[in-house]
């Protein structure tokens, strides 16, 4: 992979999509993780869904960031970005809250990405990934060139997401907010991760 390229794994994409779908009337957000070493390119290998309410309030966001940080160091992952889906589907521009959190992540990771989910493109049969990515350039967050964003095996990814919906497994997704409502729920989504990895065909070498 080249400098400035960003790769988004099926696992990360699927969970983000599921998160946005689970709370269609709220804004949702989460963190993008990488298990690859820091380099010129960014490989987003996983994500942690965080909130579906009061995104702009500090305490729970701070708590979640701290806990995910700890979990990352335990599992050799790094926080490399932030995603958000706005409640109002017609507006997928980053909110002040999104910029603030992305900025914090950028302090620790100099090729951090900010990913906005475009709700208007989330319908069955849409041929284009419903995402808009931003990167830090000249002290502001600028739109990233689409050609530097890699979603390998896009069709397979779409099919996996569809399978998760038809099997009802999309309800397995737990975000940090739901975890706080019931702490026996696992915000690291081990169960769901395993299901998704099962669906990803090993023959294609997709990770």
């Amino acid at each position: 992979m080249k400098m400035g390229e960003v790769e988004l794994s099926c696992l990360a994409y699927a969970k983000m999509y599921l998160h946005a779908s689970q709370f269609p009337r709220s804004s949702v957000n989460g963190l993008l993780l990488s298990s690859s070493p820091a380099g010129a390119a960014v490989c987003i290998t996983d994500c942690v869904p965080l909130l579906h309410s009061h995104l702009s309030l500090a305490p729970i966001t701070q708590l979640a960031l701290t806990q995910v940080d700890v979990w990352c160091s335990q599992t050799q992952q790094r926080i490399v970005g932030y995603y958000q889906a706005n409640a109002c589907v017609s507006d997928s521009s980053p909110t002040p809250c999104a910029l603030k959190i992305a900025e914090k992540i950028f302090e620790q990771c100099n090729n951090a990405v900010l990913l906005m989910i475009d709700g208007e493109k989330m319908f069955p049969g849409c041929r284009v990934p419903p995402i808009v990515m931003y990167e830090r350039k000249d002290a502001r967050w600028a739109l990233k060139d689409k050609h530097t964003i890699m979603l390998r095996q896009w069709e397979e990814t779409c099919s996996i997401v569809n399978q998760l919906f038809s099997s009802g497994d999309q309800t397995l997704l737990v975000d940090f907010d739901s975890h706080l409502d019931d702490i026996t729920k696992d915000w690291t989504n081990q169960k769901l991760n395993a299901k998704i990895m099962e669906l990803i065909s090993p023959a294609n070498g997709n990770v």
Partner: protein
Amino acid sequence: MNIEKMRDKLRKWREENFRNSEQIVDVGEELINEHASKLGDDIWIIYEQVMIAALDCSRDDLAWSCLQELKRQFPDSHRVKRLAGMRLEALERYEDANKLYDSILQDDPTNTAARKRKISILRAQGKSSEAIRELNEYLEQFVGDQEAWHELSELYINEHDYAKAAFCLEELMMTNPHNHLYCEQYGEVKYTQGGLENLELARKYFAQALKLNNRNMRALFGLYMSASHVAASPKVSAKVKKDNVKYAAWAASQISRAYQMAGRGKKENKCSVKAVEEMLESMQITMS
């Protein structure tokens, strides 16, 4: 599931104002299609409940048929007109919806439901400042409308106007002193506003929320974090520092205990339990 059970479920969801629309459509559609004759007068309120849930699930076919039944039975009803308006909203025909609501209000200027729908339309269109303005006007007239106060607090939080959000929550806490959620949300708003005074206030309200419901994890974490921050502040007296260290330590032990109990026997929770334990340890180090 038999009819009684289905009816009871729908009633429970109605009374608790749950928005589990997919389940409501599941249960409600079956009830309506197969057992309509056995529902008696209940059927009208079930039509209403199912119609709204159907709109939520983009089931316009189902919403339309429920609406037709209601229109037939209650031809001049404002309540049914409002449902027709909601359907137009779901189809994003906001102008038509507004016309309908305006006609209700012409007939009956005190119709709160129609006014609130108009405000919801502003919200759906992303016109937050207008929604806020209209909601404020509404609340001047209908000061006791809890739902409206809460909606306003949400709008202010989204706009990062924490001072005004706090004001709305204060109203809600006054009229609902036993509601732990309002106390906890108030704590979160104060914490977000920041500064020593606000952090101490936040801590107090998190504590109050815990008094009302000792299983509110957000309040517990909130108490832990605000007390820790106050204790770590160079501006506080030794006594205040000591007190807050005590509060934070108490909260930490409660959190630990809660997670130990949650993690028992569930392999998948090991990660979240470990993460919390490490977090508590690391924060303790920074505090001392």
